[in-house]
């Protein structure tokens, strides 16, 4: 499975990788903002995208909007510290498959992947 992790924090990207199930065969690409994420997506590096919301250059809301505008079937799991109910509803409305609050744990990752039928 090709996984794209989008977050401006290197530590957060590491935590996402660490939370992935050990038995998941994944090729992971990393991006530090929305623009890098779109480039990686266009280059074919993403079947599942883990997306932060609060990022410089292009935030997660805009990135999600553009991704889903291009490909309604893009699988995007939002991982964010912005836990406002309105933020969670907004990403759902934009087409995110799941919302996971930071800091992510293996259990939360498992639940999110299960929720969208990937494991």
């Amino acid at each position, binding site marked *: 499975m090709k996984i794209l992790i989008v977050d*401006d*924090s*290197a*530590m*957060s990207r*590491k*935590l996402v990788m*660490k939370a992935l199930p050990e038995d998941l065969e994944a090729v992971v690409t990393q991006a530090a903002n929305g623009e890098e994420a779109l480039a990686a997506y266009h280059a074919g590096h993403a079947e599942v995208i883990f997306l932060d919301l*609060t*990022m*410089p250059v292009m935030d997660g809301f805009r990135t999600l909007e553009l991704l889903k505008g291009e490909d309604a079937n893009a699988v995007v799991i939002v991982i*964010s*510290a*912005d*836990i*406002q*109910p*309105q*933020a969670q509803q907004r990403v759902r409305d934009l087409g995110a498959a799941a919302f996971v*609050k*930071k*800091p992510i744990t293996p259990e939360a990752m498992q639940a999110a992947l299960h929720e969208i039928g990937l494991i």
Partner: protein
Amino acid sequence: MSSQLANLRDEQRDVLQELMNVAMGQGADRLARLTETFVTLSVPRIHPLDVTDASLLEQLAIASQPAIITRQSFLGRLRGEVMVCFGENGADQLAGLMGYEGEEQDSIQDELMLDVTNILTGACINGLAQQVELKVSYGPPALLSRGRQLQDVLGSQEFRGHQALVLEIHFEVATHSFYCDLLVCITEDAVATVVEVIDQLLSDI
């Protein structure tokens, strides 16, 4: 300047910034619930500074603008002060946001700013303390200054001996033109604790 905070490596700074990002997400959530609005959260940026070094303070956009500044202390192994900087019209904006008008708005302004200070300080410092497994307690919030510049306030004697994690974090309710910025000052002796925790987290991941 030879402080430990100023000499953080990039990866240490990244960890600290992400810890604060998670903490401030909780702060935005609590502010949103209080005001029944959606709060836009900026990307937090951390500049370790010596709060008494005027040349470093000039880097901050908020330092040279007249502001209403509140404060709240926190105690424990993590010890220091949080300051919340409201814009010059922040009190009016906040009262308007909360639905107060006229004379009622004037009388409630200070109380509202102290409530917001308490909410943001609690969320910010609790959020940080929980992640690094430290316990903190709090003093009451208070109005520190009205109409003075932050750099004048920080240059005063009582803040000597503090270093600052300047969180250039901006909470904004765009529909009501309300915003505020946060400044976290920690004491010199608490800095070692913070750095120790950051290094532990780095070794864990």
